[in-house]
Every structure is written in structure tokens, then in C-alpha cells.
């Protein structure tokens, strides 16, 4: 790795996120390849890379939603399942059915479910927390609206409020700025900074290169592998970006693809591009 993580700041507690030699392959497509990553507490990490670089896959793998082919992931020094309550998640907006019969408040309340455990219903206190989270994203007046009646930006704010309601220490956000108006984007980034000030750690998948250096203090340049990772100023170099976006490693992706195919299919063709 070009700039390997050099963090001695948090030697006492385990790092919010540590990934070692992680490889993830969908049935026929390898997506992540030998990923090493250590995220220090209190940082905002932007995950940047071209389409199909495996950004969302990384988030999903951390959440245990995808099987891991090799390597391991630790959240606060534990496997994901043991650290569930310390993780907040903001999925991509297209991933849910917006016609679903719930209103904005219901969605935010879902963020409390993890703490409730089985057989318990959300209490009044939970509802108050949910309302205050809605207030933080300036959506109180929309609390009783069915979610399909919200604009894209408002929907994203509801998702953010839900993540806030999870009261987690590590937040994973998948493209929170997609399809969002400028005011919402500013509001979201303000909330992210606030969370950071409270010592929370944020990992944000982002596709906009122009705003990335402004938003994040660390950047993970991803393209199937870690192209570069570290402080924004160190990572955001022309050479690194060209490495990530230039497709100069077509051999790597080709070999990985044909290898995965052979494994799953018993395909005997050689290196089909």
C-alpha cells in the first residue's frame, strides 16, 4: 500500500473499523481484492472510486450482508455481529421501496429497533428521540408524511435521521449525496461534522471527486483493491487518481474475473475478457 495507515492515536481502544486482506466475490464477479484498512476514531473517511470499484460492496461486506471469500473485518475489535448496536447505516436511496406504508417518523423510529430487542415496542422516549433526530435534519414538519411524498433530498434526510436515532459510534453511509439538492447536501455535511465532533467515526461512499477533498479528512481510493488510503492531502494526488480511475490494472480485473468464473462454473475457457 502506498500510504499505509499510520495511526498510533488510539492505542487504548480498538479501532472502529479494521479490515485485513479482505476479498469479496459475488457468484461470478470478484469485486474486492485483498483490502487492508484501519480507520481511526473520530475520522470522516470518504470512499472514492469509479463505478463498479466495489464501494458499496465494501460497506455491505462490513455489515455482514455479503459472504467474505477471505480475510476478516473487525468493528471495535469485534466481529460485526457482536458490535451491531455500535453501527449506524444509511443505505442507498434506491435500495428501498418508497411506496411502503410508513411515514417519516416510522422510518426514523426503526433506528431504535436494534436497541429495543425482541418483543418490546418503541416507548415514548424512543419517539421523542426520533422526533429530535428529525429536528436535527430539519424535517419535523414532515414527520407524518408518507415517504413517497417526500423529495429526494428529504428522503435522504429521513435516512440520515434514522441513522442518528441509532446513536451509533460508527456510521456507514452509501452515497448519501446522490440525487440531493445543494441545501440538503450542506445540511448533511454539517451534521456529519457535528457527529465527528462528538467523536463518532464516519465512512461515506462518495462519487463526486470535486467535493471529496473538502468533505473528508481521510480518503480511501478504491478500485477493486486499495489504490491509496490515508490523509486527504496525501492521497488526493494526480498519480493516485489516475491509478484509481485510469484502468491501468485491466490485467488484475481480467484475471480475477476469469478465476472466479472458473471456480464457480468450472469454466474451462482461458481468461475470457
Amino acid at each position, binding site marked *: 500500500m502506498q500510504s499505509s495507515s499510520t495511526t498510533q492515536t488510539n492505542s487504548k481502544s480498538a479501532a472502529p473499523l479494521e479490515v485485513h486482506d479482505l476479498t469479496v466475490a459475488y457468484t461470478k464477479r470478484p469485486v474486492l481484492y485483498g483490502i487492508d484498512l484501519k480507520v481511526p476514531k473520530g475520522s470522516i473517511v470518504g470512499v472514492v472510486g469509479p463505478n463498479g470499484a466495489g464501494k458499496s460492496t465494501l460497506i*455491505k461486506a462490513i*455489515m*455482514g*450482508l455479503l459472504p467474505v471469500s477471505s480475510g476478516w473485518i473487525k468493528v471495535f475489535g469485534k466481529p460485526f*455481529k457482536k458490535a*451491531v*448496536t455500535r*453501527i*449506524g*447505516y444509511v*443505505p442507498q436511496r434506491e*435500495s*428501498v*421501496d418508497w411506496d*411502503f*406504508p*410508513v*411515514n417519516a417518523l*416510522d*422510518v426514523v423510529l*426503526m*433506528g431504535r*429497533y*436494534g436497541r*429495543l430487542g*425482541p*418483543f418490546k*415496542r*418503541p416507548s415514548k422516549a424512543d419517539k421523542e428521540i426520533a422526533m429530535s433526530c428529525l429536528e436535527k435534519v430539519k424535517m419535523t414538519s414532515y414527520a407524518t408524511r*408518507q415517504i413517497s411524498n417526500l423529495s429526494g433530498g428529504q428522503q435522504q434526510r429521513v435516512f440520515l435521521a*434514522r441513522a442518528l436515532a*441509532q446513536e451509533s459510534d460508527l456510521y*456507514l453511509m452509501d452515497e448519501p449525496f446522490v440525487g440531493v439538492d445543494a441545501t440538503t447536501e450542506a445540511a448533511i455535511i454539517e451534521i456529519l461534522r457535528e457527529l465527528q465532533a462528538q467523536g463518532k467515526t464516519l465512512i461515506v461512499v462518495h462519487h463526486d471527486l470535486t467535493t471529496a477533498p473538502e468533505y473528508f479528512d481521510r480518503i480511501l481510493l478504491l478500485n477493486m483493491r486499495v489504490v491509496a488510503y490515508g490523509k486527504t492531502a496525501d492521497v488526493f494526488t494526480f498519480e493516485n487518481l489516475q491509478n484509481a480511475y485510469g484502468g491501468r490494472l485491466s490485467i488484475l480485473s481480467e484475471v480475477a474475473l476469469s478465476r472466479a468464473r472458473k471456480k464457480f462454473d468450472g469454466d474451462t475457457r482461458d481468461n475470457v475478457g
Partner: protein
Amino acid sequence: MREHFFPDFDWHTVFVQPWAEYGDNSFWIVLMGFLVSGTCGLVGCFVILRRMALVGDAISHSLLPGITIAFLLTNSRDTLPMMLGAIAAGITTVVLIEAIRHSSRIKPDAAIGIVFSSLFAIGIILISVFADKIDLDAECVLYGELGFIPLQDIAMLGGVEIGPEPVIRMAIIAVIAIGLLIAFFKEMLVTSFDPGLAASLGINPTRYQYGLTLFLSVVIVSSFESVGVVLVIAMIIFPGATALLITDRLPKAIWLSILFSLLYAVLGFHLATWLEASIAGGMTVIAGFIFGLVWMAAPKRGLLTKLVKRSFKRETTSP
């Protein structure tokens, strides 16, 4: 025997006579109809939201070989073996669909179609081959017959007759359904809405998916006797789908679906009495009719409502 398709409508014979002269029978029939469609509707709300409607259809068809084999093995119509056979068939269906999907490039819709039709065919063949040994009538399987409910064995509790056995069984299932709904409402809600979030909250979406499928099989098997394998899917989809056209909130939709179920049972019974038709068929016709009505004239989203509102707006805005 009569001459015309639509007999003359006579208020007395259609609405009064069934209650005045055969009050007991009518009560059990309508109660059973309500319990069936109410329970199906309750489960159905989640089935719709998870886009499993056609999986439900597949399960309802596949139960046939399950109960037939259970019947052949035990030679009895006891509830337990039938139930076990049906659950086994339900699980087999889901497992087969998943297996075909994962082991080949067949898309889920085709996998569903292949699996349920094959299993249903096996069931029909078994029934027609062992016709002399099975008193499962193929037509009964297709239509179901609510009219026979009062003729079934009477369940006893502590020496007191409490009602026809199928009704009592269905009532127990309904109570279980309500209990499960209350206990797992928030888990069902979040796994249906956003499986990713559910996983991040430590709620395993697959577990609830399979739980729902399992319970769906139980509900279907206890219902099919009354409404038949095809119409059970009507009872599963119609109440929830109609309710979801009216309201934006899930709890409200569930209440509404129960209300609709009651309407189906009562109106369907009287429609069938009038036409001398299958009661389950009558209930489905009512269900379809109410859906059409709501679709056209629901308060906020009805097609006609929108039309009227639009023309009203035009009138007020134009000078």
C-alpha cells in the same frame, strides 16, 4: 334446477331466510369465512409488501401433494399429519425455487412457475390414482366448500360443544397470527422495508423471511379446505391490497384489511345464497368488487377521485 343465470332477487330469501331459518349454519359459515379471510389478510399485508404474492400462490398449489401424501401415509384426516405434510410441502416449494434459481440461470418467476405446477400435477395425479382411498375431492381442493363447515365434527371442550372443528382450528390459528403480529411487528416492519437496515440492527432478515413463509403455509393449509387452493390467494392479497390503496400507514392497513375480510364473509355469503353459487367464489367476487370500488373512488388516490378533483380545480381556476 332453474332457468336463468341470475335468479330473481328476493330480499327475504337472500338476507332474512338464512339467518331466520338456518341461523346456526349461517353463523358458522360466515364466522369461518371471516376467520379465513381475516387471518389470510393479516399475513397477506406482509406478503404483499415483500412482493411474495406469487410465492404464496405457489405454496398454496404445492400443498396439494403434501397433504395427499400425509393422508396416504397416515390414512386419516387428522389435523396434525395434514398440517405437517403441508408445511413440508411449503418448505419444499421454497427450497426448490431457491435451488433452481441458484444452480442455474433460470429467473425466479420461471422457477416459481415450474415448481408449483409440477408439485400440483403430482398432487392431482395422486388424488386421481388413489381416488378410491382418498376422500379428498379434487374439486373440493379447487373450490373449497364453506357450505360444508357446519356439517363437520363438533369440537368439544370439557364436555361442552363449542363449534365445528375447522372453525375452532381456524380461530386458534387466527389467535396465533395476532399474537405473532404483536410480538414481532417491528421486526416484520423493518425486515420488509429495508433488509439492509434490519441486518445492521442485528435483526436477521432471512430468519423472518422463512418464518413468514412457514406461517403462510400453516395459514394456507388451514384455509384451503374452505376456499380452495386458488381462492386462498385471493384472501391473502385482496384485503391488504385494497387497504393499501386507502391508507399510508401499516397498522391502519392491517385494521382495514380485517374490516374488509368481514365484508367479504358477510356479503359473499349472501351473494352465494342468492346465486346458489360457491361461497368462496362469492367472497372473491365481493373482494374484487370492493377492490374495484376503492381503486376508482378511494379518498385520496382513487382514479375517479383524482379525475373529479382535477375537473373541479379547472372549474375554480378558470374565470
